[in-house]
């Protein structure tokens, strides 16, 4: 074995208790990091997917600019044939056409402003969870029926039940006055307040009729099998629609800008905490190594007198930290992965999670997935900081004077 490695290895076992305490701090924080980061990444994935599945889909075909400033006249012409074409070309039925308008919805004595969507009753359930969340009555059936499904909060606000009539007032795509009387077919409850308060759906053909859309709509919604499949699917859709149609494909980030921000905000606060944890571990390593270097002043003097260069001594100290760090890394990753893997089968829940779960459509019990990244990233950072923490003790050895060092006992 290399002499530097041998010295480093024997040195760390000179004070087994101290080494285990330092390594223990690393193992503990590594377990925590593996578990927390896996849980977090798992939650984000669910958060994104579940939010997208509620309504917006993984991507939408729209007129350019519509995503930023949804104007009624920024239409997708012949939206239903386009959706049908995409369904066929992609070999997928998770594609549906929609149109969207603002309208005033009035019951007998109340009026509220709502976003009303024209949807394809047969295809909408494939791209959105909303149709499945109808609690009272039923979802839309016929393409041209003048009926509507509304959210539970809106139903309460308007004081209507299924079978009641609503009057819709709005303006058509050409700016003309649009009005219709529709029957409440169903009431859904998504659990997301904004959706339950503001959104209503009616059959697309009836919508086009009411708002003088002339066959046009505003979006073709596409749901990918999973978040990971979305980018590839988007490329295929882009190839099919093409810029020459005057249409663009917006990804989920463009459709739901708040989602990424929420994740980033959550991530930065979490990583700030992880940062503190890592710094604490680094200081414990720094303390250990400073102490152990100080204790060995005499023998460092001896090996320097024998002809070992100060740089080589520094390397021994760095190697000692690296060995401890490696031990902490391996043990931490094994234990952390075991814990996370166990929870990924058994599920994990904690107090206060319900609230966040409800807000982002998450289940109250999370099954954190174990991925290479989520398992390795935390312990890797701890390892790097362990090395950094021993740079100073190693560097101090450069100033060591052999004779003076040998006088220390």
């Amino acid at each position, binding site marked *: 074995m290399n002499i530097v490695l041998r010295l480093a290895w024997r040195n760390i076992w000179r004070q087994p208790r101290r080494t285990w305490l330092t390594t223990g701090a690393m193992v503990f924080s590594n377990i925590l990091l593996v578990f927390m980061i896996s849980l977090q990444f798992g939650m984000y994935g669910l958060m994104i997917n579940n939010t997208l599945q509620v309504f917006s889909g993984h991507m939408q075909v729209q007129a350019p600019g519509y995503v930023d400033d949804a104007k009624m006249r920024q239409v997708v012409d012949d939206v239903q044939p386009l959706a049908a074409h995409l369904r066929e070309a992609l070999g997928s039925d998770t594609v549906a056409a929609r149109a969207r308008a603002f309208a005033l919805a009035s019951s007998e004595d109340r009026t509220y402003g709502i976003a009303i969507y024209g949807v394809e009753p047969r295809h909408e359930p494939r791209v959105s969870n909303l149709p499945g969340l109808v609690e009272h009555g039923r979802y839309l059936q016929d393409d041209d029926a003048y009926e509507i499904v509304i959210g539970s909060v809106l139903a309460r606000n308007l004081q209507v039940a299924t079978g009641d009539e609503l009057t819709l007032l709005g303006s058509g795509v050409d700016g003309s006055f649009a009005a219709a009387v529709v029957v409440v077919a169903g009431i859904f409850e998504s659990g997301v307040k904004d959706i339950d308060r503001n959104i209503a759906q009616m059959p697309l053909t009836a919508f086009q009729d009411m708002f003088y859309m002339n066959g046009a709509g505003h979006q073709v919604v596409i749901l990918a099998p999973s978040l990971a499949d979305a980018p590839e699917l988007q490329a295929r859709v882009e190839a099919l629609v093409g810029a020459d149609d005057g249409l663009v494909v917006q990804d989920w980030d463009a459709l739901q800008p708040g989602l990424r921000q929420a994740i980033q905000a959550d991530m930065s606060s979490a990583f700030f905490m992880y940062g503190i944890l890592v710094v604490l571990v680094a200081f414990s390593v720094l303390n250990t190594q400073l102490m152990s270097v100080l204790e060995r002043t005499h*023998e460092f003097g*001896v090996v320097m007198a024998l*002809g070992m260069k100060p740089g080589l001594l520094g390397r021994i100290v760095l190697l000692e930290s690296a060995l401890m760090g490696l031990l902490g890394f391996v043990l931490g990753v094994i234990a952390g992965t075991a814990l996370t893997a166990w929870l990924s089968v058994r599920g994990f829940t904690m107090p206060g999670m319900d609230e966040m779960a409800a807000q982002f459509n998450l289940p109250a019990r999370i099954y954190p997935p174990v991925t290479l990244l989520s398992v390795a990233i935390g312990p890797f950072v701890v390892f790097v900081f362990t090395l950094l923490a021993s740079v100073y003790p190693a560097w101090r050895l450069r100033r060591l004077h052999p*004779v003076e060092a*040998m006088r220390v006992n």
Partner: protein
Amino acid sequence: MTAVRCIDICKTYTQGDVDIKALDHLSIEIEKGEFVCLMSPSGGGKTTLLNAIGGLDIPDSGEVWVGGQRIDQMSKGELAELRLANIGFVFQAYNLIPVLTARENVEFVMQVQGVRPAERHVKSMVLLEEVGLEGLEDRLPAEMSGGQQQRVAVARAIVSRPELVLADEPTANLDSHTAADLMELFVQLNEHHQTTFVIATHDQGVMRYAKRLVRMRDGRIVDDVQQNAA
């Protein structure tokens, strides 16, 4: 050929308000293959002189030459290389590396030099046997007596056949019999390999082996005689 040359070297230590002249305008020249004993009352400057010759300590003034190279202006790294390649040290206190066994301590210098394991192993075993430590190869320093540790230190100093061996009280912890054996070993190395020895000692027994006896007091050489070795 001159192995060591010190020209007018001074080294002053300040202890509180008092200046202690550990080396006081000292000059000495030692030829290759000499066997020199340094003698002085305690505090006479022997250790300081050995440290200056070994490049462990730089004198305040004067020049130190070892093997034709001026060393008092070398960098730490260059000095380390010089010691590793050319100088064997036996220190006043045993100074073994506590985490290494007797054999590993002896092999240490060779290992830093990059000598192959098989060669290292043979050399260290032969030498440990010569200093009478057969069977104790795998003991850690803490598991050996002071005399045994000192013998390991001696073995470590001479195993890689340095041109110059600097020994500070090498027999301080040895019984007279072992001390004599050790001196025989030094003499043998000196005669067969032209290894230069500079040994600081109080021990009358050691002085008998010296071919040149240098007496010091207060950092100066007061007597320097050639004598017929025992």
